[in-house]
């Protein structure tokens, strides 16, 4: 097997006296999707923010494409150029149009000229069926449309690894599907992803590896079938039972 895109070893993260992540180790191979499930507060979002260097870790190492990105003298801006991140709350820039949101990073960070950036953006907008929204401001869009714009905003930078942080949690059930099908398309095109989600059906469909996060530790991992169908740990079974009760399985 080739070098993994991402490899994390014994990561630990705490906020003050509260330990949020403990002894987290996993690897992400190229073209694969690693999915994290777990209750709210189990540390999924924090984990993604640590990978993106938005949070400083307490201990352990994070290796991206063979480079230790958790070392003290790392240039976070350079690391983030290789990463794409999509947030639960979209976080589009409200003072910019859809098009301006998408081309901001290509023109300002990657130094692409305006025309090429717009051309790239229009290709994406066509693909995601939002060409007619290019000049709208984000607040005129539905949640599902906003989240697809957020995905485009990350994709246009051709990230090595895409981090998706509960990207459907703020959407109603109809809109969830349009966003998830966009992610499934990305998966089939070979995008490498780390995903935090509450959507078990979606997790089952895209996950090469599924990890159950419980109180900041990876309690159970393996294929989606193994974790969802034959969980070994009592906590996993209880979690899945509660999700089932809530009608989300």
């Amino acid at each position: 097997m080739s070098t993994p895109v991402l490899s994390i070893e014994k990561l630990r993260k705490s906020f003050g006296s509260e330990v949020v992540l403990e002894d987290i180790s996993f690897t992400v191979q190229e073209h694969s999707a690693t999915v994290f499930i777990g209750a709210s507060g189990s540390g999924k979002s924090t984990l993604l923010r640590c990978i993106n260097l938005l949070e400083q870790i307490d201990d352990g190492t994070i290796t991206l494409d063979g480079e230790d990105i958790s070392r003290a003298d790392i240039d976070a801006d350079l690391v983030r150029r290789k990463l794409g991140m999509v947030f639960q709350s979209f976080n589009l820039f409200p003072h910019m149009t859809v098009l301006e949101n998408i081309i901001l990073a290509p023109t300002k960070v990657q130094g692409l000229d305006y025309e090429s950036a717009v051309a790239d953006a229009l290709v994406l907008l066509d693909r995601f069926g939002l060409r007619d929204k290019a000049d709208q401001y984000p607040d005129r869009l539905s949640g599902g449309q906003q989240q697809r714009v957020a995905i485009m905003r990350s994709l246009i930078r051709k990230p090595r690894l895409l981090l998706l942080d509960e990207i459907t949690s703020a959407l109603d059930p109809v809109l969830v599907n349009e966003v998830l099908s966009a992610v499934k398309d990305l998966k089939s095109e070979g995008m490498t992803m780390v995903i935090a989600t509450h959507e078990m059906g979606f997790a089952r469909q895209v996950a090469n590896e599924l990890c159950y996060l419980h109180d900041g530790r990876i309690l159970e991992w393996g294929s989606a079938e193994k974790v969802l169908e034959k969980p070994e740990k009592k906590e996993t079974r209880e979690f899945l039972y509660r999700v089932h009760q809530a009608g989300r399985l």
Partner: protein
Amino acid sequence: MIEESRRSAGDNSGAAPYDFGGKWQPSDVELARRIERNNRNRRNMAIAALSSLIVLGALSILVVTSPGWKTLRDTFFDWAYGLEILPKVILGFTTNVLLTLIAGTIVAINGLVIALLRTSRSPALTPFRILATVYVDVFRGVPMLLVILLVGFGIPALQIKGLTNNVLILGTTAVIITYSAYVAEVIRSGILTVHPSQRAAARSLGLSHTQTLRYVVLPQALKRVTPPLLNDLVALIKDTGLVSILGVTDAIRAAQIQTSKTFNYTPYVIAALIFLAVTIPLTRLTDRSLRRSLERENAQGQA
């Protein structure tokens, strides 16, 4: 997809998402309701007019029948005299306008720089951050009149060669010193209201700290603080009148000179009216800009 086409149809026409062919006629129930609403509106308007008439009428009768009314009218509202000295007061007011424009521009730049320094986290800027904090603490807390007096009489007293003794420049400097502190705090509060998730999104796209500030944080912050800044502009116009204590011939000083000649106070009233002619439209503009920004925020909340 159906959901989407409905939505975009709604966007274009501004009509309800469901179109029943435009054949809708209000029902009898609705028509009765409209008549009732109209009646109530008319009744409310009549009550408002009547109560205004009674209150304002009573007030004017009280003033006009007071024993000193005639003297007051002659010394404060001598319109013929007012018209005579109007050009002089207006000439003085051009100083206020000029001072507002110059001070306003410099204050805007100073305020932005101080706000950025106070919100920066760069270790190299630490001494400037401390200075900016002390500056704001001091000049937000000292009455502007004192700053004007200290600068206006203190700097010439130093007798340093090359430093101006021009009271207009010294007065303007004092106004700038004080207002920069106010404006810096307004802008800083605007920067702090931009949600951290906006920074996180910008940084995760690879934007540097400076780029994040320039393209994401500042545009949103400045848009949000426009109404309070306009409010400060109105206050600035009025406060430029304070430099008159240094002897600058602004509108207030010009009125004062006229008054001291005749012991008629109409020039003060004229000066007040000239200030109002500028500040009232600006206040309306501020109200409108505030309303717009609230509407925009609410629209975002719904999305």
